[in-house]
């Protein structure tokens, strides 16, 4: 069934350095559109080493007003502490502000940094304390909070702050026990700012001269691999160029690297030039170490930097004649995902639930659709909650589309796209609770049937996404398909996916139960093989992400979260390719 030959052409493509073209990928024009710099292999590589490759760094600024006065002779001396509430309820301190003397309306200067993770719901808890006079000269970090006067607590979710246009939220302070009727404790205002690094990107054109010849009967087939030096001493690859065949003086297509990838302009980067070999054993032609700032200097001075090769003698490096040139170095600001979101762009959530007979009778505790009276979620409910809970903050009206497929509805016919709420004309429900209620209701009214077909659901979603383009370009649709089984008509699904591939739509598929999902993995075209319809049309971009629910992910994230991680990248690729900018943007 599988091919014995590895995907040589796929292996020759550029990875990691985004190009804002929707199709033709990066470098040598191959492979399904580079997904905003995302590549599953690269991401897994980083995560396995405890690093998240792409995320936004956020800084929180706090201020408060009308704080309670605890001191007798003067006003309170307030300080704020910020925590992250973890899954088990424990609070993890993220940072604290400085102490401001004698004020009930403090505006703290010290900011608290944290990473914004789109795929999780980040619960923030704020505590405000009045710091006693005897601790005023002591570094804030060493203060024992139980010795201080507690002034009030507030909490919110990070997404609530970053999705607002003002990027700030004002919360009422309350007691830890949330007692009703306690007098006013004042308010706390939290402002979130994305660090400049989130928006900075550099577009570089590399060229080499006089590369060594590693091939026997022809010239080398060179490509560059760029790695970032990390504190532990090693280096992590961040991107590679495409392979240029048979050329000792190659010039590669432009590489676009975001500051999140290379760290900072001073961070040393290792640039290695290899000769591509189909066996995977690429011969090192030469390497050098330069920071982005060094590369900028090379560009300005139109100078070349010499490659070196580690020598077998005495650990010295041999300096080669081969040189690296930077023909273009362009630093630019790109709008980040949060720039779009806070300017009014929205994610519209749609969910489709599998009602085929293979799930089993819902009344049977073995069924994938069994609703446990103890309240424990089944796989379907879990997937709906995990994805819905995150996305709901990005949809202002919280009206979600909910469908079922493969079930026999009230009129006795099997439908491959019916409204989950049982209504004949409205497919929308309110909030994630609305989806859960419609799902539970449908289990009573719809009988399991079959076969497993996605085509209709995908076509309907595509229709909605396409129609929305007549009104605005600021809605991006996310369709979550939860299924237990193997597709009956793969070509029908592929045809629907290809037709939908040029629309503002991403499709997340979660596989529940123990079936063999190999076929689903083919739809998730991460190997560079673009989906082809029966009419000869090829998918414009890879809009499908698939994950089996039972798959364990490193770093403690769930399967659904793994799906969500890709979304900001897919959203940005779509918007940037069409030069759609955030509304009324502040200059980046």
């Amino acid at each position, binding site marked *: 069934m599988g091919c014995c030959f590895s995907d040589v052409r796929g292996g020759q493509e550029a990875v990691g350095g985004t190009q*804002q073209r929707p*199709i*033709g990928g990066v470098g040598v*024009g191959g492979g399904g559109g580079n997904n905003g710099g995302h590549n599953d292999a690269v991401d897994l590589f980083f995560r396995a080493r405890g690093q998240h490759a792409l995320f936004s760094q956020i800084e929180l600024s706090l201020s408060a007003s009308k704080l309670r006065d605890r001191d007798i002779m003067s006003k309170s001396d307030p300080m704020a502490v910020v925590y992250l509430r973890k899954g088990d309820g424990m609070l993890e301190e993220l940072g604290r502000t400085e102490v401001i003397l004698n004020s009930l309306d403090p505006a703290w200067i010290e900011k608290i940094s944290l990473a914004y993770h789109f795929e999780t719901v980040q619960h923030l808890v704020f505590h405000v304390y009045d710091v006693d006079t005897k601790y005023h000269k002591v570094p804030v970090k060493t203060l024992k909070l139980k010795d201080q006067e507690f002034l009030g607590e507030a909490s919110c979710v990070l997404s609530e702050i970053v999705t607002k246009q003002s990027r700030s939220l004002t919360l009422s302070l309350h007691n830890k026990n949330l007692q009703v009727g306690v007098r006013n404790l004042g308010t706390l205002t939290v402002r979130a700012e994305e660090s400049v690094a989130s928006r900075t990107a550099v577009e570089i054109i590399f060229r080499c001269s006089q590369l060594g010849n590693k091939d026997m009967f022809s010239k080398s087939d060179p490509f560059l691999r760029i790695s970032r030096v990390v504190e532990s001493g090693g280096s992590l690859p961040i991107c590679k160029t495409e392979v240029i065949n048979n050329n000792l003086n190659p*010039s590669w297509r432009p590489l676009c690297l975001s500051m999140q990838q290379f760290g900072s302009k001073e961070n040393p980067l290792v640039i290695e030039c290899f000769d591509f070999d189909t066996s995977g054993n690429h011969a090192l032609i030469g390497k050098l170490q330069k920071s982005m700032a060094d590369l900028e200097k090379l560009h300005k001075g139109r100078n070349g930097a010499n490659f070196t090769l580690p020598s077998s003698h005495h650990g010295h490096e041999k300096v080669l004649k081969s040189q690296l040139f930077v023909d*273009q170095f362009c630093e630019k600001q790109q709008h980040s995902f949060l720039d779009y979101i806070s300017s009014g762009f929205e994610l519209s959530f749609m969910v489709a639930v599998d009602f085929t007979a293979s799930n089993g009778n819902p009344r049977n505790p073995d069924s994938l659709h069994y609703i446990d009276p103890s309240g424990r979620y089944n796989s379907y409910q879990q997937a709906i909650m995990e994805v819905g809970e995150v996305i709901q903050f990005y949809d202002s009206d919280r009206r979600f589309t909910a469908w079922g497929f493969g079930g026999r509805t009230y009129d006795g016919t099997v439908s491959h796209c019916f409204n989950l709420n049982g209504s004949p004309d409205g497919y929308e429900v309110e909030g994630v609770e609305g989806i859960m209620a419609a799902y539970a209701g449908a289990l009573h009214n719809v009988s399991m049937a079959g076969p497993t077909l996605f085509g209709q659901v995908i076509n309907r979603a595509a229709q909605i996404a396409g129609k929305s383009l007549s009104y605005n370009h600021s809605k991006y649709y996310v369709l979550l398909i939860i299924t237990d089984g193997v597709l009956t008509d793969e070509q029908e699904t592929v045809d629907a996916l290809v037709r939908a591939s040029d629309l503002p739509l991403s499709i997340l598929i979660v596989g529940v139960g123990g079936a063999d999902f190999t076929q689903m993995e083919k739809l998730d075209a991460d190997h560079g093989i673009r989906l082809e319809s029966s009419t*000869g049309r090829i998918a414009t971009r890879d809009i499908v992400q698939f994950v089996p629910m039972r798959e364990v992910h490193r770093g403690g994230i769930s399967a659904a979260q793994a799906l969500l991680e890709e979304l900001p990248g897919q959203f940005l690729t779509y918007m940037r390719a069409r*030069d759609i900018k955030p509304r009324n943007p502040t200059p980046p």
Partner: protein
Amino acid sequence: MANARNRSLEVTIISGEDLRINGRPIKNNAFVTVKAESRCSPSSHESTKPDARGDSYPYWDEKLHVELPAGSPYVVVEAHRRSSSAGDKLVGMAWIPVSDFVGDYTPENHLHFLSYRLRDAKGLRNGIINISVRVVTSSHKGASSCSSPLPPPVLESRMPVDREKHGGTVTGVPVWFPNQWKS
């Protein structure tokens, strides 16, 4: 009927993938022609410049204008290779249904990014072509079923990038990104 109008299309030929002749990847000088398939007398066709540098994965990023008469069901895209010794050889063609970019729920002037499988003269699969299509103007169909010959469309193509200035490389700026280099 969606196709009851005469339309002007702006077709950007972006790139090609894995183009071969007789099973071997082509070396260079691939170019593409576009025309509307019409029942009437042959409509004029537009072509890109040959990509001298790119091998079997050529890159053009060239905008061409195509007049699409009412009732025309397909836009035909052909990839060829120009060789001074052997003349032009057909690499493959793709027949693009007009319904892929007209009347598919998207607004009339929406920019569509499309890709198609090329098939050679024997009908065998031969690479992929990546294009974008946008309907620029449309006017209602005239009385006759076959539109009268339109004035020859202006051949519009971009000037190739000066190799010396940019160090021998295409800068890869997509045509629809006019503000790419603003810092």
